[in-house]
């Protein structure tokens, strides 16, 4: 559906050329939700603007629905944009227009027949749950409600694709949660394809199928969310994961424990999360497992459990127990190798 191929975007400034996006390729299939995560200044905002050509890429190709965006004339581009909804961190509603007008005015301007407009406004206000706020002005709404209006405005165009530019970043955690649920709902009900950018791992965790980690204009790691969450490679990915799960134990604490055994991080995915595997280990091997930290992450497409454990015992016994755990599908990392580096 959305194909970005080797997209680069350079800005010329007085200090020289700044490369905001550097050779980024990604592919979003129809009906999927893909997320790009990165710190501010990573270039993700520029990247998402390259999709609907609000920013013209310096190099690379944008393809949407098998149309080469970079080769369209201006009026063809306007026509194609009607098929792409976009929501923003700042909501970007007309302050002097009511909720209803905020949805109906763009519809009128993109040429939806006048008769159909009230119907559409009703329909999408109902979907976002704001029917009773029809005659309110944005100034009278909360941040979450404004974003719902913006979502209704985007949906009312009935696009195939929704771009979300930090749509939840200005909202409190509870409101963020409800907006994410709304995005999931419209993805499921309308099969709308979503590409979003965010700096919040929670957003990726809750609604994304695919995630790309962006740093200094380039994608440093990307893949299905469950893979990246269970087996992160890049240090930026790890530090983002740290924001939603406790992964830090102090070096002294770990090396103290290592005198009497191994300190390990066990990652359980899918089926293995339900098994009482540590109880089995304690029973079958001459090992005393001690859980240091534990957490479980519910993703859109599965569950990942993390355990930091201390396995006290002879090294041979530890090795045997690890073989057993691996056979059960548990991923094991020595604490030193991975997490000491962060």
């Amino acid at each position, binding site marked *: 559906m959305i194909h970005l191929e080797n997209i680069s975007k350079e800005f010329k400034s007085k200090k020289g050329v700044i490369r905001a996006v550097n050779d980024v390729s990604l592919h979003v299939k129809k009906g999927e939700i893909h997320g790009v995560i990165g710190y501010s200044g990573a270039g993700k905002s520029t990247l998402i603007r390259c999709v609907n050509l609000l920013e013209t890429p310096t190099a690379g190709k944008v393809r949407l629905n098998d149309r080469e965006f970079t080769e369209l004339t201006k009026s063809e581009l306007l026509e194609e*944009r009607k098929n792409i*909804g*976009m929501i923003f961190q700042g909501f970007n509603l*007309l302050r002097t227009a009511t909720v209803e007008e905020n949805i109906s005015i763009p519809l009128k*301007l993109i040429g939806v027949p006048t008769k159909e407009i009230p119907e559409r406004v009703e329909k999408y206000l109902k979907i976002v749950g704001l029917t009773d706020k029809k005659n309110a002005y944005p100034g009278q709404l909360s941040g979450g409600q404004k974003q719902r209006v913006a979502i209704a405005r985007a949906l009312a165009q009935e696009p195939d694709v929704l771009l979300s530019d930090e749509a939840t970043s200005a909202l409190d955690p509870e409101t963020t949660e409800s907006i994410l649920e709304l995005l999931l709902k419209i993805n499921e009900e309308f099969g709308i394809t979503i590409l979003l950018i965010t700096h919040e791992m929670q957003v990726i965790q809750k609604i994304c199928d695919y995630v790309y980690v962006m740093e200094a204009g380039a994608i440093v790691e990307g893949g299905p969310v469950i893979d990246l969450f269970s087996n992160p490679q890049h240090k930026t990915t790890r530090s983002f994961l740290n924001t939603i799960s406790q992964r830090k134990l102090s070096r002294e604490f770990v090396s103290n424990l290592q005198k009497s055994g191994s300190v390990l991080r066990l990652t359980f995915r899918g089926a293995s999360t339900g098994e009482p595997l540590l109880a089995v280990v304690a029973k079958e091997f001459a090992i005393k497992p001690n859980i240091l930290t534990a957490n479980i992450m519910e993703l859109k497409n599965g569950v990942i459990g993390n355990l930091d454990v201390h396995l006290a015992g002879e090294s041979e016994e530890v090795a045997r127990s690890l073989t057993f755990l691996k056979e059960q599908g548990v991923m094991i990392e020595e604490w030193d190798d991975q997490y000491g580096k962060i």
Partner: protein
Amino acid sequence: MINMERFNTFTEQWMPLIGTALIETAQMVLISLTISTVLGIPLGILLVLTRRGQAWENKWVYQALNLVVNIIRSIPFIILLFFILPFTKLVVGTTIGVQGVIVPLVIYTAPYIARLMESSLLEVDSGVREAYEAMGIKTRHIIWNVLLRESRPSIVLGLTIATVGLIGATAMAGLVGAGGLGDLAYRYGHLRYEVDVMYATVFILIILVQGIQSLGNYFSARMKKD
């Protein structure tokens, strides 16, 4: 009682003159305000949209407009009035009377309104425009439905300021025989030592400006919805 008598004689003697002057001022202000607005708003839009990074980015048009507006804005009205006499003659065929003063008033006010429009339009959140661009909406629709619509409260305030400025400028219209309140105060109040006329005119001008400003504030506040 003495004051009342004096007031009655005064009104009897001067009311017709003051009335005529007020009408002349109103004529000059309304006509030149209308024409200046019609010219100034598109100029203001151009000043915004030809800037760097805007929809109609054009360095030359922007620089030229900017220069012309600045030049006209640096000439005091009393000088402009005489400076453009040949042009006035060319446009309306005369350089005197209300007709003769409309041209310099417009040339004086239109660039002023353009500047006021420019700052009003620049206040509009660029995010909203971006959102409309992203929806595939044409620039001319964005100008009308986003830029002008959102800046209405600020435009009204700008036009109020321009109107007050215009009233001030019309005071000099007497120099080309167009009459008006300023001319009355000058000729009778100053040259003929009729101090009461001076006071009365100043009083009327204060009421006029107060009224216009309050009206402008009221409508602007009503259009603001936050």
